[in-house]
């Protein structure tokens, strides 16, 4: 295995971004084609890596290591395990479908795809990083493109406010984690930022308990954990469709993943000590997020808060610190990523045609865009955790894990699923069925072919994982086991 597949996947987007910036700004069609080709290439390679990963051998694979700043023990060290590889694939999928959904952007598409691709490189880089400096480097690389993407191409009403709020929240979280990482590196006395070596550092219990909240919550801000979730619905709503997809679909996983890899895996004693608090907060995420979602009148805010609710399940899975919970959390990250990308794509298609997202002013869309309605309903079923769809595959183990540690939390969190079913059915009923308002009837154009391809890919994946969980679950289970080998309890 000499082909540096992970590096190639990671640097395809940013290289493409640079190429785009050198192209003439007016050649919109060529710019889009280059973007699509690059996204397809990145997806193809991540799919290849996903298939080529040896689940039986498990552990970190496709590893590359090159010294970066030897004086400080920083190296470019990458590799993927069962936890991170599905997320690399997820990023490839969302990037590919996101480019297709964004075909219609006419305001400076060169800059749009350029910044989107810088963001994508940041995301890939975090998922494959095995060095703490590198992880932070790519993590923050993902912050500023987000600001521009939302501020420039977002929803006029709230974009400036939302973009600034989101960027500052994420930056605050990441720099606080950064200090935590520095504290770990310089307390360990190992003189390295390599996370595989820091895992062996054997920090004192007092140190771990002190620093765990800084590191974990600093990253978990991006995972949308209560009470630091406030940026996320505003950000999701203000962002243009592809960016919302990226944002809710991939970026929130970035926060959760970094919180796991740096917080829980490097400070395991701290994780055990603080797990009850995380359980409590994440339960609030699940239930409160779902409740808020069910009273929203704006279609996109419903989805925005549903992400807060679903990311709570991921955090719950982490906090169980057992195999079922962690496996479920890994699956939920993938499943929610695809599902929410699908949701935001649908919301975007509806909004582009109706020019409103007020649920009360929508209706009857299943008659004019049946495929979109079917896709949304599949997403909805995933969201409710219906058996046969990926949501069930993910949520069932989380609750199984929860039951083993805190049956009460499992019961309370299960309320969230019921509320979810309520608001999903309300939205489906209002938006896709019933009578189409008179001012819309006859004005709704059909969705484009590219939109359809994107929806079929996303919805197909949700069903595939739902009925054939073996394509992903065993891989994630190996990832969960390697987490547990460090945290204890394997």
């Amino acid at each position, binding site marked *: 295995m000499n082909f540096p597949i992970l590096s190639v996947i990671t640097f395809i987007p940013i290289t493409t971004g640079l190429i785009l910036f050198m192209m003439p*700004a007016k050649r919109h069609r060529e710019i889009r084609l280059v973007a699509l080709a690059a996204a397809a290439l990145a997806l193809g390679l991540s799919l290849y890596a996903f298939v080529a990963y040896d689940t039986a051998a498990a552990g970190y694979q496709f590893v590359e290591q090159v010294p970066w700043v030897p*004086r400080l023990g920083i190296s470019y060290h990458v590799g993927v395990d069962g936890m991170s590889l599905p997320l690399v694939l997820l990023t490839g999928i969302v990037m590919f479908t996101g480019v297709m959904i964004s075909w219609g952007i006419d305001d*400076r598409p060169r800059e749009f795809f350029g910044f989107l691709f810088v963001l994508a490189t940041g995301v890939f880089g975090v998922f494959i990083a095995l060095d703490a400096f590198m992880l932070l*480097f790519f993590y923050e690389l993902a912050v500023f493109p987000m600001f521009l993407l939302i*501020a420039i191409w977002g929803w006029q009403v709230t974009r*400036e406010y939302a973009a600034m709020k989101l960027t500052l929240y994420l930056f*605050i979280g990441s720099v606080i984690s950064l*200090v935590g990482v*520095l504290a770990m590196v310089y307390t360990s006395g190992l003189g390295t930022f390599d996370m595989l070596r820091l895992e062996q550092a054997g920090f004192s219990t007092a140190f771990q308990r002190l620093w765990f909240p800084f590191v974990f919550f600093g990253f978990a801000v991006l995972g949308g954990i209560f009470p630091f979730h406030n940026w996320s619905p505003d950000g999701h709503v203000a962002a243009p469709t592809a960016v919302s997809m990226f944002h809710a679909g991939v970026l929130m996983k970035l926060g959760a993943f970094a919180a796991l890899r740096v917080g829980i895996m490097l400070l395991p004693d701290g994780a055990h000590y603080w797990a009850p608090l995380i359980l409590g907060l994440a339960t609030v995420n699940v239930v409160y997020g779902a409740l808020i979602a069910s009273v929203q009148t704006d279609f996109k805010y419903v989805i925005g808060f549903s992400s807060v609710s679903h990311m709570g399940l991921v955090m719950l899975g982490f906090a169980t610190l057992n195999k079922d919970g962690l496996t479920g959390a890994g699956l939920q990250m993938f499943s929610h990523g695809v599902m929410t990308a699908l949701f935001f794509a649908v919301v975007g298609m509806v909004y582009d045609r109706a020019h409103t997202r007020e649920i009360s002013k929508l209706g009857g869309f299943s008659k004019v865009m049946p495929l979109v309605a079917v896709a949304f309903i599949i997403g909805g079923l995933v969201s409710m955790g219906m058996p046969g769809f990926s949501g069930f595959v993910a949520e069932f183990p989380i609750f199984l894990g929860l039951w083993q540690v805190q049956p009460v939390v499992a019961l309370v969190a299960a309320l969230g699923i019921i509320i979810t079913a309520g608001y999903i059915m309300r939205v489906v009923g209002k938006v896709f069925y019933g009578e189409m308002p008179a001012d819309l009837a006859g004005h709704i154009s059909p969705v484009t072919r590219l939109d359809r391809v994107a929806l079929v890919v996303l919805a197909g994946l949700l069903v595939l994982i739902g009925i054939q969980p073996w394509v992903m679950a065993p891989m994630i289970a190996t990832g969960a086991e390697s987490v547990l080998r460090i945290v204890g309890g394997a």
Partner: protein
Amino acid sequence: MTLPTYAPTMLTALLPEVLLLALAGLVLLVDLIGRPRRRRGLGWLTAVGMAVALVLTLLFGRPGEETLVFGGMLRSDAASFAFAIIFLFAAAVTALLSVDVDGVGDRGEYYFLVTVATLGLCLMAAAADLIMLYLAIETASISLYVLAGYLKGNDKSTESGLKYFLFGALTSAVMLYGFSMLYGASGQTNIYFLADQVKTGGLSPLFLGGAIVLVLVGFAFKIAVVPFHFWTPDVYEGAPTPATAYISTASKVAGFAVLLRFLLAFEPSINVSWPAVLAALAVATMTLGNLLAIVQTNIKRLLAYSSIAHAGYALIGVVALTAFGAATSVFYLMAYVVTNLAAFAVVILFARSAGSERIADYAGLSRRSPGLALALLVAFLSLGGMPPLAGFVGKFYVFAAAVDGGLTWLAFVGVLNAIIGLYYYLIVLKVVYLHRSPDEDKPIPVPRPYAVALAACIVLILLIGIASAPWLDRASAMALSLF
């Protein structure tokens, strides 16, 4: 103790200064005999001259063992060498940025002053004797006062020059008083002999502390550390913008060079309370600079306050008084110099075409000139500390040095400040990328000297950010040579 006052080999240590003196003479000569229409070539001549001096210094001026030369007046070491390189680079870029600026671009004296100021800064970084140090500081400062007030017909520029002069004269008098106390107590003017004497306990710590405080006032003025920063915004705003770029980069770095040399020479004997004083200065400088930058509406004043804040970040590395800390501080300054020069390049280009320095007038820049907007984006995000740019790595390293030196709280103050910083940089970028303007169809021309300067800075911002190892090694060698 006596040192040899001259040997031919010592000239190597003086190579950049000799070349600069020759260049200064050449500029004056060409200005005198050249035809008025060709005077715009003077900027190119100065820039190329600086570049040649830079290359020659790199090739032939490398220092060997750390030695005191010319009777102990100068010290030949990695630090004086590398700081000279930084100043030459900054001066070359400044000369290129001056070419098309009205009122300065075609004036021989202007380029002469830039060259002489650079000469003074190089001597500052190498000076090992209090008298030499004072002369070097004055050589640089007096040239810079004139540069700040160069636009004679412009009230703001005149105000800028006068204000800079008055503040500078006052702080330099205080510093000189400190020097005289040091001399009076020890009978020495050489910094390193002084330090030896302190080590053997020849001076009362209280007296020494008092003298060092007075000396630091002078250095703090050059660096624009709070509370000696009051001149900065007015001087930066009024001075011709290329001169502002130069003052905010080269002159500030020279202040750090003398500060580092002075503090590290005395390092083993320094009182325990020094880090606390320096930490307080760093916190005040960062926080005040950042908070006041938020409310600015003029881009030069914004950059003035942001440059105060950046001095604060660089001070974090100094606080720990470790080799690693000093290295990160020097690294930070390298990153800061290339970044700030790039930011000023865009400001100059914009002011040339649009005739405005108001932030609100930057609206629509990304539609007017996408390339220029991208350059500003890179520069400002680097100032804000975003990867993969130089500013991110610079901040990361100084915070690492703080944590390494047991000053985790200072790293926290630093990152909180970085958040405030990012906020006001993003506000400018928002105006550039988001706001609309009726002038969107008027692109901003970028003459060749500006394109060269800007490209050099942007490439370096990326290079320092992505491949930081060689730069950090260089900074470490510089820091080590000062101990």
